[in-house]
């Protein structure tokens, strides 16, 4: 593709896609698969059937080309160079911040801090806000379905500060027990942190309702949006939460890109997380003045090309329309639950069975066959699924499962992918049958 003359405007092809998709209305996964070069790969003589998008999504040409263009045409550090390409890089980097802010409807693009991923965003909050605001006997409420990224940072914090963790339990089909949540709020927690969409069960949690309950009890709310931002419309103002963390690489963006959104007054009151260049205004030998938000939290040279790529990924998804993306994935969930249950003898499916309550994540087991063996045999047919505990060991313990296999979807996933999975699982059963 041609190098854009003004990187801040993004790439020309991203704009073209936007127009095409909006005109088409409902999302057509078959048409947009052409945008994802990796989907043309063959694995073991079969077309790649990628059903691990909850782990990381594949990337469209516009994102790959944007990152490549950055390195070919205007690679330079940001906020430093008084020369053309330095100014171009800075403009594109800050334009990407504005795109990401717009994508989650942040009221102010200075409320977006670029991070490597959702994990780093949550760690930023736990180290910066947490160390200043959580003290002895203070309570943080989490849930039993959290990814380790939204559990371990809080464990470390309360161990250091002698605080407490409490957990909202789940029902057997993976729904949060809000009745228990209301009881836990009587402990007057300082923070409630939970996932928007479960990476293991797909459960879509009622964020707005939970935020209202938490705020009424005086708690701040952090939402782990890693599995939500790529898959459904997210409006941080409508959700009403205080912190929202997400990964870029799960939303068609480059590896190593992610972001934290937080209300500006919170960011301004928070001490820096990492320290060094970029995050300072003035440095003396014995003290320093810190930069404004968000740069106060972006010490050192950032992943400039990846952030610019993330901005283009947000535009790409925006062009598809997140309501259409959600509708597409809801249809895939309904199709997968029905087809797998009907066609694969004995398959065990976990999580909410109502597609309205569930993102594009389907965990399952074949009785008597370990998920690693399932995944290994599926790979013979080019089918990629995740097997293991998906960074939710406590959730697996709660459900009394050693491990699960997991199929997960993105914009380019099709019912044909699910059909291939069904055929692959029947073959797995043949391999392990008597």
């Amino acid at each position: 593709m041609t190098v854009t003359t003004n990187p801040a405007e993004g790439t020309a092809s991203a704009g073209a896609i936007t127009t095409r998709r909006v005109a088409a209305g409902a999302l057509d996964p078959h048409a947009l698969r052409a945008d994802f070069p990796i989907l043309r790969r063959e694995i073991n003589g079969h077309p790649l059937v990628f059903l691990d998008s909850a782990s990381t999504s594949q990337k469209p040409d516009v994102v790959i080309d944007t990152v490549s263009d950055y390195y070919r045409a205007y690679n330079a550090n940001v906020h430093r160079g008084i020369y053309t390409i330095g100014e171009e890089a800075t403009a594109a980097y800050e334009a990407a911040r504005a795109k990401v802010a717009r994508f989650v409807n942040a009221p102010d693009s200075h409320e977006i801090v670029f991070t490597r991923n959702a994990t780093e965003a949550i760690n930023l909050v736990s180290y910066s806000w947490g160390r200043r605001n959580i003290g002895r006997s203070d309570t943080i409420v989490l849930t039993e379905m959290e990814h380790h990224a939204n559990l371990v940072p809080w464990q470390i914090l309360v161990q250091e500060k002698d605080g407490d963790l409490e957990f909202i339990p789940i029902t057997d089909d993976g729904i949060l027990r809000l009745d228990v949540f209301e009881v836990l709020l009587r402990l007057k927690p300082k923070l409630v942190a939970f996932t928007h969409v479960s990476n293991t069960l797909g459960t879509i949690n009622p964020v707005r309702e939970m935020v209202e309950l938490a705020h009424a009890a005086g708690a701040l709310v952090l939402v782990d949006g890693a599995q939500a931002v790529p898959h459904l419309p997210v409006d941080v103002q409508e959700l009403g939460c205080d912190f929202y963390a997400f990964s870029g690489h799960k939303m068609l963006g480059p590896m190593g890109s992610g972001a934290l959104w937080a209300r500006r007054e919170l960011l301004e009151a928070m001490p820096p997380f990492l320290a060094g260049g970029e995050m300072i205004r003035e440095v003396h030998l014995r003290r320093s003045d810190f930069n404004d938000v968000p740069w106060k939290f972006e010490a050192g040279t950032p992943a400039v090309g990846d952030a610019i790529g993330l901005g283009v990924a947000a535009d790409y998804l925006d062009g598809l329309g997140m309501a259409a993306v959600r509708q597409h994935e809801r249809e895939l969930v309904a199709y997968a639950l029905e087809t797998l249950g009907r066609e694969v003898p004995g398959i065990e499916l976990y999580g909410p069975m109502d597609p309205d309550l569930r993102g594009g994540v389907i965990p399952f087991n074949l009785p008597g066959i370990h998920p690693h063996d399932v995944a290994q045999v599926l790979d013979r047919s080019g089918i990629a699924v995740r097997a293991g505990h998906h960074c939710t060991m406590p959730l697996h313990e709660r459900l009394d499962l050693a491990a699960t296999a997991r199929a997960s979807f993105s914009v380019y996933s099709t019912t044909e992918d699910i059909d291939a999975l069904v055929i692959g699982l029947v073959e797995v059963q043949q391999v392990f049958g008597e």
Partner: protein
Amino acid sequence: MDDLYRDYILEHYRRPHNFGVLDAPTATFEGANPLCGDRITMQLGIRDGVVAEIAFTGRGCAISQASASLLTDEIMGMPVEKAEAFRADDLLELLGIDISPARLKCAMLSLETLEHALAETPGASDAALDAALDAAPVEAAASTEPANS
């Protein structure tokens, strides 16, 4: 095409040899790969410097369970000194399949558990203790789950 699931591997998985518990073990060790949920409990009956009896229970993937079945066949009746000298390469040769790096932990769980069990045996040699220390860390699992699910 991978060639992990050869007939004899699947046969050892479906009907593992030496699967069960000993009446009077001289050593017992339970090992687990917490990342994938594989568990193996290895029991030894050592008499007169020989592994006179060996049995295991466990659950997990085909590779981990078939590996334990093949390994216990091999170790049964072996002088303790020779069992202590049994190494990862020997086990891979016994398995006779190409194990990808991602599945190596599954294949090695049985051997690491055996090495710990040998080290737990009263009067274990320095060599056995060294082998157990050298083994990739095997978590001592809390609960026992004898079902080969």
